[in-house]
């Protein structure tokens, strides 16, 4: 398993995508913006490139020839994507702290606060649970899987932003006291972990049936 992860980080992922979170994270410094875009760039840029590179390099054929289980190949791919998602989250948190130190004004949309990152975890949860099971139907065509999962993440975050603007109830939870924000964060982390497991189970079941 660790060998497969090593392979993902050494061979499959372009090193640029380890730097990208620090570049896209800096977009948190834009005053008053739709900050979910900062994390959506991961879905727009990193994931399609990651999957395209994997396909171009014939990664599946390489991996199945190694002495590993097919389910481990799926697990390694999910863990490597999750690692990059967490890297994007961590850098975004750092920039969000700087943002909140610099700018004292309220954002028209959701502030980059604790609840924002809870919703971001939920966004990635939704993204992952659609992306991986769709992709592992044939472990080859990634376009539809990336398109649908990114679309779902975009619609979800757009709805949250609109609710923050038009629903005082939602705004009071997401921009209210620290406890309510921490609850949103906890809910986000739980859904992120849960959907990662569901995505793994569904994907590995499907990948077992794929002819390489």
């Amino acid at each position, binding site marked *: 398993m660790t*060998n497969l992860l*090593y*392979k993902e980080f*050494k*061979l499959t992922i372009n090193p640029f995508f380890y730097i990208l979170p620090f570049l896209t994270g800096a977009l948190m410094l834009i005053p008053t913006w739709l900050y979910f875009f900062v994390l959506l760039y991961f879905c727009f840029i990193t994931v399609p490139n990651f999957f395209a590179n994997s396909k171009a*390099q*014939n*990664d599946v*054929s*390489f991996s*199945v*020839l*190694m*002495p*590993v*289980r097919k389910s481990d190949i799926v697990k390694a791919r999910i863990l490597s994507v999750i690692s990059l998602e967490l890297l994007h989250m961590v850098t975004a948190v750092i920039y969000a702290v700087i943002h909140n130190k610099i700018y004292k004004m309220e954002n028209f949309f959701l502030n980059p606060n604790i609840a924002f990152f809870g919703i971001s975890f939920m966004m990635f949860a939704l993204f992952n649970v659609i992306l991986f099971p769709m992709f592992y139907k044939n472990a080859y065509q990634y376009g539809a899987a990336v398109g649908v999962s990114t679309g779902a993440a975009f619609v979800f975050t757009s709805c949250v932003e609109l609710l923050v603007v038009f629903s005082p109830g939602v705004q009071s939870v997401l921009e209210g006291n620290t406890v309510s924000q921490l609850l949103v964060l906890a809910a986000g982390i739980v859904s992120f972990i849960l959907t990662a497991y569901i995505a793994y189970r569904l994907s590995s079941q499907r990948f*077992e*049936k*794929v*002819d*390489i």
Partner: protein
Amino acid sequence: MSALTVKGLNKKYEKFELKDVTFHLDEGYIMGFIGSNGAGKTTTLKAILNMIQINGGEVHVFGQDFSQNEMILKQDIGYMLGGVDFYIKKKIKTITDVVKRFYTNWDDDVYNSYKERFNLDEDKKISELSDGMKVKYSLTLALSHNAKLFILDEPTSGLDPVARDNLLELFQELVEDGKRSILFSTHITSDLEKCADYITYINNGEIIESSTKEDLINSYRIVKGSLKSLQEIKEPFISYKTNAFGFSGLIRTDDLKTHEDISVEAPNLEDIMIYYAKRENKDD
């Protein structure tokens, strides 16, 4: 001891199927797996390696069920399916660094000795290697993790005659100690005449023969004669060709009947393949 036993392997596709593919390879021998393009060679090799879902059958490697012990048994298998066509823009040393981590029996000394013997430049990218060097790199990786069974899909395809001859000599050298076995597919029958101990012939998803090279050739005869004599004896032919001067056809040696107007000779592997393919075309 049997290195590889394949029993009743079935795989159904919409327009093609593997039908009860059965053969076995003993330790210390080279088996050539022959068949025309699309006969099912690569599909069989992929089915053996659990890369495709089979509809029935069993694969045993060194006496153990492959599907139950895949992870352990893969440690002892070296493969090359369709050339080294992955991560072609990466340097050899990068690929080796990743691959070696998967194998518990990896031996750096063996790797370095074969690397020197084959003049492999570790700073070269896979895409910079010739077809022959790609095969040698695959073999180097397999030998370095002490593989006992080599499954190679058309390793000689695309090689020039000299490189092919070198490779076939290497195959013979590898099995010399009786511990390694090689199953390699090809449609170049002269490769097999040079080095294969056993031959398994697949045609349209069915195994036609799996035996020693000599037994396979002895099971068939090429019969030549006049068109008149053809009318009298054509029934048991696998297939035959006619021209203005007469006919020539492939027949099982057991079905051979004496006839005054015919000549009989031993076929080569190519003859057997061609006449079986001709029968398929006729059936279509």
